[in-house]
């Protein structure tokens, strides 16, 4: 089944310089009762974004009209905690195509890759540079190229390469899907079962 294709983006970014952002912050458990994949973006960072009366909190970055873009930039250990894929769905549904951090939790990283949302792991130093660039100019543009595996702060030309599993890269740049791949090996699965 075809999935979303990701090759290259160039866009302004949304900074969230907080460490250890867990998936309960990205999408609180009480919003996991939906049985479809759509609509989770409305509740992305719900309790940071809205107060108890559902009014937007003006000091939260998603409520600040000066910041926008398709890349979320966050502190280290992003996506720790629960395995809920709803976290990746919420970020993608809100309109982000990539998340940049200096460290990602494993399960979140896998979930993001399975949903056409690219997790880009950069060095602490480069992360700091992106934050500096966007706080100096909120329209600062960042380029991410999955094909050549680099991320660049366009204004300064500073760039860094990033790692991505070659198989997942092929999936994302071609819209391939894990299940199609495993199903192509179905005979091997049956042989394995018989050998047990």
């Amino acid at each position, binding site marked *: 089944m075809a999935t979303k294709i990701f090759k290259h983006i160039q866009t302004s970014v949304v900074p969230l310089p907080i460490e*250890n952002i867990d998936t309960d912050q990205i999408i609180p458990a009480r919003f996991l009762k939906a049985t479809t994949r759509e609509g989770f973006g409305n509740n992305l960072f719900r309790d940071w974004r809205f107060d*108890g009366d559902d009014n937007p909190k003006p000091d939260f970055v998603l409520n600040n009209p000066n910041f926008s873009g398709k890349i979320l930039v966050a502190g280290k250990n992003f996506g720790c905690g629960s395995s*809920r894929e709803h976290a990746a769905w919420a970020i993608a549904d809100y309109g982000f195509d990539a998340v940049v951090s200096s460290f990602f939790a494993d399960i979140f990283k896998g979930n993001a890759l399975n949903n056409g949302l690219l997790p880009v792991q950069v060095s602490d130093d480069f992360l700091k540079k992106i934050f500096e660039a966007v706080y100096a100019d909120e329209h600062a543009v960042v380029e991410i190229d999955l094909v050549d595996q680099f991320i660049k702060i366009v204004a300064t030309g500073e760039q860094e390469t990033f790692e991505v599993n070659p198989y997942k890269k092929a999936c994302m740049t071609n819209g391939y899907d894990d299940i199609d791949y495993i199903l192509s090996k179905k005979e091997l699965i049956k042989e394995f079962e018989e050998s047990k």
Partner: protein
Amino acid sequence: MGQTLFDKIWDAHVVSSNEGFPDILYIDTHFIHEVTSPQAFDGLRTRGLPVFRPKQTVATADHNVPTIDQHLPIKEELSRYQVDMLTKNCKEFGIELYGLGHPFQGIVHVIGPELGITRPGGTYVCGDSHTSTHGAFGAIAFGIGTSQVEQVMATQCLLQSRPKRMKIEVNGKLQNGVGAKDIILYIIAQISAAGGTGYAVEYAGDTIRSLSMEGRMTICNMSIEMGARCGLIAPDETTIEYVKGREFAPKGEEWDKAVAYWKTLYSDADASFDEVLSFKAEDIEPMITYGTNPGMGIGVTQHVPETASFEAKEQGSYKKALEYMGLHDDEQLLGKPIDYVFIGSCTNSRIEDLRQVAEFVKGKHKADNVTVWVVPGSKQVQEQAIREGLDKIFDAAGFPLREPGCSACLGMNEDKIPAGKYCVSTSNRNFEGRQGPNSRTFLASPLTAAASAITGVVTDIREFLKEKELVG
């Protein structure tokens, strides 16, 4: 070169391994629940695929379910819809469901082991990060996202890259009042909430070896709280004794064959780990967390760290956490008034946890300022507690025994800690809002939670045990 326990199990489950691709790993049992499965079932329908091995798929309803009046229809509409959807999906795809009212219903990570489904040497996955619990049996078990739930439903396999291997040894004698929960909270506080990311962690050493299966499950359960892919402990006589005779455990000749295999499951003496850490049991105090991730833990007599003790780039996040928790630099938690005590969750809701709490609270009563919830991990745990008369002890102490489910661990049902209130909780996560919007969680062991419920303040369990020794 010898092999690690992890590699022995992994290698025995590789269906296909190709350069540049993750391995295709065979999954022995896939556990599913109401929250992370509906979109996966929809995916199968869209693809026109059946569940490939429905008999190797086990379902229960746990995350969303109420913990009182389970015999009545679920009041909350969305929760009811999600649980009904699971029933409908299981029926359509031929999957056994231990739903509400079934004698095997309960938290997915409690029922797998107690039914003898979880066994040494197996591979287990579930759309829930605390699947690491099952590793206590010397198995590979980890949490997966919904796309992977669909993948396992469709193929009984998972595409997965082999993680690095870490060994964590704990040796020595634990202090009185210190248990498995304190050990794991201590380890996470030492290596941080990200210290295990990318690793499969094997716990070893004589302290770990001396733990019951319940204790080992508590340890492995929280592996994910240091970011680890999974946690595991080599099987031994304790493991074999636990599995023996359980509902779905092998019987007769099958049992003998299984045990013979399980005895080969250990890390060889010359096996190589990517990382080895060692801790001394004597150094571990009863632990409590003060912050908003499980790595933010201290011994119960210690003080909250100073903001200045962190690197500049970490100070903002640290201040945010303390502000959320209503705490300040250098504050001591000991003696701090609390509002709620939650004894439950896949970390600490097994019969041994309940027995330990009951033994401690017998003849005592909770403080007036505290509300206590005791939520058993499964229907079987609940019934066992009642058979042993623990419910009566709990009632007399003001600790009502509720019905099984995930409950206030994540507040998906009605069991939410109100905004601003402090809860000493035996669960696994102290994230902002985890137990309800703006709730404040102190993670601790069942004994620390029970002692704090009695006094109404954060308490050092060792003070009680001293008294007991004096009396005794």
